[in-house]
């Protein structure tokens, strides 16, 4: 792997950038692998990387129907935080957070993880109770967090309207300083390049069309480029998990919904933290390019169209302008949509299935990006050992039968 550094950049400049190496190969599928990962997004690529890196399993294929990182990795609003309410979620997202904190160096790829802090605003007494409950839980779980009052919020974000004038005045917030944002595409590319360097085959434009199953054991996948065999297959296909599951003969407790986001035109920096509000339904940060990156809740209907309905965008901007009246004259450049698999309890599924050797990693809803390194790490360990990693174990599909849900609705609501 060609090592990246500032010094290297100078060397390449002198050679007119003529001898940059490919960041990953474009291999021909082998007939057989030890493990197949279906889905070349951030989570799938991270899984492949950790399989190779930590478990020495390098005979791995990542099968991607389009281009690497082209699903929700390419479409999310890049927020990273770990201040979840329940122990199980907190453990998972904090595991991810610890990986984020050295990821650029580990991958030798600057994923621009910017720990600028995330505010989750409270606008009602119940919001504030929930915030206190969550921050107290976070601290006892070893996760950084503070409860701020309205003045504290105002001093962090001077341009926000924290006055009593607002329809739902800001009463306070939870504040996680270690949280922030990262450069989404770079995460996929960084993992792809590192996994490729360890021998993982990244198969783009390769679509899984069915599974080979014998005696309840997975044998491999059918693809538009032929059959590929493996005794271990991990599906990490956010947005399309139910479609894959049905190919394998079972349903999942998922619904796929459109999730929309939008950006303003690029502006000179005005907002240095991430601000999220469940109550007025909107969240916002400003990218290093200057765009205000804005998102909100999902559309209520099932949809695989990578677009949602316009009123969702309107409500989101209403919330943003309510919080930031100075943005009224700023202009919205672009909107887009992703497809998110939502679980009834707003928590993901990392699980074995009825088919031996076939694993699913799905149901991240609107919050999958932040978990990318942690999800990949524990899912790889689970695939390698054939037993779910302890952090992943509570996220089994079985919880929807036993009733042991991990209900993050109260704490996470719509916004991620």
């Amino acid at each position, binding site marked *: 792997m060609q090592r990246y550094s500032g010094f290297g950049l100078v060397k390449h400049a002198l050679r007119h950038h003529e001898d940059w190496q490919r960041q990953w190969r474009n291999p021909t599928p082998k007939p057989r692998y030890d493990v197949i990962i279906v889905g070349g997004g951030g989570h799938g690529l991270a899984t492949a990387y950790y399989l190779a890196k930590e478990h020495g399993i390098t005979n791995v294929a990542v099968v991607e129907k389009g281009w690497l990182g082209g699903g929700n990795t390419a479409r999310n609003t890049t927020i990273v935080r770990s201040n979840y309410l329940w122990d199980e979620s907190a453990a998972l997202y904090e595991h991810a957070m610890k990986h984020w904190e050295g990821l650029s160096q580990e991958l030798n790829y600057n994923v621009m993880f910017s720990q600028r802090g995330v505010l989750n605003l409270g606008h009602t007494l119940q919001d504030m109770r929930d915030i206190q409950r969550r921050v107290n839980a976070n601290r006892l779980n070893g996760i950084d967090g503070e409860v701020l009052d309205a003045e504290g919020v105002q001093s962090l974000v001077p341009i926000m309207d924290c006055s009593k004038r607002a329809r739902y005045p800001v009463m306070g917030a939870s504040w996680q300083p270690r949280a922030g944002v990262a450069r989404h595409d770079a995460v996929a590319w960084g993992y792809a390049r590192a996994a490729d360097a360890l021998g993982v085959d990244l198969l783009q434009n390769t679509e899984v*069309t*069915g*599974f*080979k*199953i*014998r005696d309840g054991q997975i*044998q491999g996948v*059918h693809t538009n480029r032929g*059959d590929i065999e493996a005794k271990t297959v991990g599906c990490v296909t956010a947005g*399309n998990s*139910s*479609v894959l599951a*049905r*190919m*394998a*003969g*079972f*349903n*999942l*407790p*998922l*619904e*796929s919904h459109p999730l929309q986001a939008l950006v303003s035109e690029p502006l000179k920096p005005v907002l240095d933290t991430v601000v999220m509000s469940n109550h007025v339904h909107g969240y916002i940060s400003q990218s290093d390019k200057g765009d205000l990156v804005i998102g909100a809740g999902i559309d*209520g*209907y*099932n*949809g*695989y*169209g990578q*677009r949602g*309905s*316009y*009123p969702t965008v309107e409500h989101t901007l209403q919330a943003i302008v309510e919080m930031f009246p100075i943005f009224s004259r700023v202009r919205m450049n672009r909107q887009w949509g992703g497809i998110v698999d939502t679980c*009834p309890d707003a928590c993901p599924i990392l699980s074995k299935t009825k088919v031996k050797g076939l694993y699913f990693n799905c149901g991240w809803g609107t919050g999958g990006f932040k978990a990318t390194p942690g999800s990949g790490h524990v899912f790889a360990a689970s695939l390698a050992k054939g037993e779910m990693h302890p952090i992943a174990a509570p996220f089994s599909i079985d919880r*929807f*039968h*036993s*009733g042991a849900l991990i209900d993050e609705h109260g704490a996470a609501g719509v916004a991620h």
Partner: protein
Amino acid sequence: MFHIYCPYCEELREEEEFHPKGEAHIARPEEPEACSDEEWGDYLFFRDNPRGIHHEMWLHAVGCRKFFNITRNTVSYEILETYKMGEQPTVGAEHLAREEKTASVQAAEGGQQTVGASDAALASVKGAQA
């Protein structure tokens, strides 16, 4: 934004008047006590969530307040029909599913069972959901 024909109001209305209520035709088991935990969980949480033809329930919340059903393509978002509660769809998921299946099922080889979205698989999934 959808333009939805309400079968009770007998006219097209804006999506903003409606609320989507998830998959249609999920009947509550007649005898809940006779259900296993698994069957009960399936009824509560597990859904077809198809990419393609979807029968779904909507509520004309700001309107006649009636629940009704829509057959909609979840990719193109085209609404193929709307029909009243208690009625059955005329455009079936099996119509599109059949096309999808022929595309996804590979010829079985060497005694291996190949699972696309086979009828058997669909049936086993439907099971408890009637």
